[in-house]
């Protein structure tokens, strides 16, 4: 088992438009854990357990460097596995600029109201 695993995927070598990326562990895990035929085995590590596994893995790997290499969190996108499923394109975290931009009109309105009050008082 310590022997070099055979080339698992004959990558097309036609990665487009440039570069050559061999089959990565993520691609393999995605397939063997999530696809393939389900046949009820006697050892009950059923699909349900695998769901639990992935959820647990998410916790386990959250702080581990391996997570960056392996990045096993495709379930984040899978409504079946996660309530945090996101749309295909992740907008990313709110950037401070955006927060600031949204804040500005409110600040401006408050300032305007203050001015009105000041005029009234004065």
């Amino acid at each position, binding site marked *: 088992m310590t022997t070099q695993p055979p080339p698992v*995927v004959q990558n097309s070598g036609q990665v487009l438009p440039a570069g050559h990326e061999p089959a990565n562990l993520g691609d393999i895990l995605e397939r063997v854990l999530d*696809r393939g035929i389900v046949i009820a085995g006697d050892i009950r590590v059923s699909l349900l357990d695998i769901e639990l596994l992935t959820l647990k893995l998410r916790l386990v790997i959250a702080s581990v460097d391996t997570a960056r290499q392996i990045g096993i969190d495709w379930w984040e996108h899978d409504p079946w596995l996660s309530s945090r499923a996101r749309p295909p394109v992740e907008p990313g975290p709110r950037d401070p600029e955006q927060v600031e931009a949204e804040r500005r009109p409110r600040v401006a309105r408050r300032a305007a109201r203050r001015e009105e009050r000041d005029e009234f008082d004065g």
Partner: protein
Amino acid sequence: MSSTADVLPATGPARPGCGVWLHGVTRDVDPALLATTRGMDGAAVRAVRAAGLVAVVSAAPLCEYGEEALRRNLEDLAWLERAARTHHAVVAALSRAAAVVPARLATVHHDDTRVAGQLTARRVELTAVLDRLTGHDEWGVKGYVVPGATPRTAEPAGSGGAGAAYLRRRRAQLTARDEGQRIAADAALSVHEALAGHAVAARRHPPQDRRLSGASTAMVLNGAYLVGQGAVAGFRRLVDSLAGRHPELRLELTGPWPPYSFAEERPAGPALAVREPAC
């Protein structure tokens, strides 16, 4: 010739203290291939035959693959990687030789008789899937957003102070980003539909997270396509031409894969488009 588990070519029935790990189901398998393919325990894989089908299995020592141990080990990333790669290597070797229905990871039975029982019980379904898969491979096409490839909206002109100008500019940026995402999503859909048109079946999987894909930009297409072995050259050309037509996406082709995405007779999810084989 009985129809039960009557052929046990390599190491015989499951050894005591060992479960039987199922790699996949096929119609027939070359003994030479079995002899040179290593299973979960590092020894050669075996065939369990029943109902005109062959289950390719390997011994899974229960101390490692029993219920408790498996539950624990599946959460060990190093173990999981080794198990996933070993299982996948067997499935891939089988798939290179003939049509195979890949089993999901960690399908373990007590003994060969139980495996044979599954073959018999699910013969109709398995046979239908094998018929559908014969002569086909799975190809993966992933599409990543190419930053800056989407059109920039012109900077809007307008009066007002620096604050107003900033807000206008910011709004334009956000609109451009939404627009960019919409354009990428549209491109992914049209690429998928074009590829599906060249495949006998197609599926869109959830896009992988960036940490999983290792890519610097978002994945918007994670497609799987079941392509006839005679149609691969055309499929490659199509990927090429789609890449040229959609500079807003970077396309990546992987394969051939064993048909993991097409192993279920009636795969879940509405995204699946199964069509009659073209030829």
